[in-house]
């Protein structure tokens, strides 16, 4: 099996971004791939636009999203579309969603939005729908079937009966280490829809599932978790090439469960520590994940970024565009049958900042 390594300048910078233009991004293409079916898309997630009061918003989170939008617009070749991975807002109010939508409106591409818990729990996604449309849907692009799920639902009792106001419900769900929170799920109604949606799709069609929650069980304490993950995975199992891309965790994670590849994405707002660093908890992280670097708080954008995704022959290479670190590429290795970090996967390639404690 041969691989060719092509180097291309993927970002043509201008003005303040000229420094980026000098950084070549290595692309991996498989020589046997039908290159006419290859395409790229960008993925931006977890911006947590946060209103202080009136027209004042938290500058730090604003800047993260503004930068992602500016850099995505400079991609060359241009991506076919952009996916937004959820948590555009911090507390889901109209002002925050409006401001997020306004910043996103500077993008020159079609955008597919997915729902995060921070967008949802104030009014159960009502205003979000007005701006962005359906909570879950599917579409086809160049021979790949894309499914966008609303995977941050939870038990009905928690959603409808427990809290006096939507605002309170939102605050309870917003704090990830809150013992009053509730585990994410896709839910039966949406799983039934997914079963129907996938029924007519040829099982050799590459499948990409966009989700905010991980669709696997990593750690329940911070909702790095999907309660009905096994049921959802069972629906994806018949497909030969399946990839799940999820937000929420604000960190590099990747995994392979059977035929399903899992990739987490970075936030544009702030990074989260790995669950393993909470000393009072059991430690869980997919074994194959090489962690991101420990963030340096003194560099405001460190540990944040956005992604572009190279869809090659039905599998993905996910390129983490990190603002204050070297880029990281996690690509599907057809020999080992799992996603792997192109630079650091081997034990002897790891560097000290990747140790978290």
């Amino acid at each position: 099996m041969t691989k060719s390594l092509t180097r291309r300048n993927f970002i043509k910078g201008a003005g303040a971004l000229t420094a980026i233009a000098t950084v070549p991004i290595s692309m991996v293409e498989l020589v046997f791939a039908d290159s006419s079916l290859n395409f790229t898309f960008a993925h931006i997630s977890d911006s947590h636009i946060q209103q202080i009061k009136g027209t004042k918003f938290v500058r730090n989170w604003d800047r993260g999203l503004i930068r992602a939008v500016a850099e995505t617009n400079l991609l060359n070749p241009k991506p076919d579309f952009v996916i937004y991975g959820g948590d555009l807002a911090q507390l889901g109010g109209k002002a925050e969603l409006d401001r997020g939508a306004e910043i996103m409106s500077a993008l020159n591409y079609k955008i597919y939005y997915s729902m995060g818990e921070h967008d949802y729990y104030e009014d159960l996604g009502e205003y979000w729908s007005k701006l962005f449309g359906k909570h879950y849907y599917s579409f086809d692009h160049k021979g790949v079937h894309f499914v966008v799920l609303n995977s941050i639902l939870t038990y009905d009792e928690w959603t409808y009966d427990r809290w006096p106001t939507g605002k309170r419900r939102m605050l309870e769900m917003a704090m990830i280490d809150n013992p009053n929170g509730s585990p994410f799920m896709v839910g039966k109604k949406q799983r039934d829809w997914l079963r129907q949606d996938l029924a007519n799709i040829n099982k050799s069609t590459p499948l990409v599932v966009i989700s905010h929650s991980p669709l696997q069980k990593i750690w329940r304490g911070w909702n790095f978790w999907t309660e009905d993950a096994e049921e959802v995975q069972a629906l994806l199992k018949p497909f030969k090439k399946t990839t799940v891309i999820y937000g929420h965790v604000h960190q590099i994670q990747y995994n392979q469960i059977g035929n399903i590849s899992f990739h987490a994405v970075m936030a544009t707002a702030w990074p989260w520590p790995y669950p393993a660093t909470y000393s009072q908890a059991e430690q869980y992280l997919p074994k194959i994940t090489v962690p991101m670097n420990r963030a340096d708080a003194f560099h405001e954008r460190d540990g944040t970024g956005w992604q572009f995704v190279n869809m090659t022959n039905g599998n993905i290479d996910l390129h983490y565009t990190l603002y204050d670190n070297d880029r990281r590429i996690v690509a599907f290795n057809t020999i080992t049958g799992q996603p792997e970090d192109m630079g650091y996967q081997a034990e002897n390639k790891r560097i000290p900042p990747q140790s978290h404690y």
Partner: protein
Amino acid sequence: MKRIKRQRLGAIMLVIVMLPCWVIPAMADEFTQEDLTRWGSEYMTVVKQGRKVFTDGKLGTNGVSCGQCHPNASNTHPETYPKFQKQLGEVVAIWEMINWCIRNPLEGKDLAADDPRMTALQTYISHERRGVKLEPGKH
């Protein structure tokens, strides 16, 4: 006989000398299970106050809370302080790093080192890190 008398006298003297210990409570090393319970609950009260200060978004001016980036106070590493904080260029105690976070991501003003909120913050983050061995200086 004489020896026994002397011993008895000694015992009486000892009782007289020790008497104040029984009369005055809470001399050094004289504490009860009740004391231990009370001290533990005083400590837990401050842990709870600390979690509130850490999570309620009122410490700075922009509504951002410490807990947004540090769920369960993880990645704060109180067990590694004092240490050389490379970004400050010197060895600092943890309260100085806490103030850095208050000034920057939280856009607020420094707390005094003995401000009760500063004590509460340190109590909470140390509590979440209990059981981890001390490693001052570790990066």
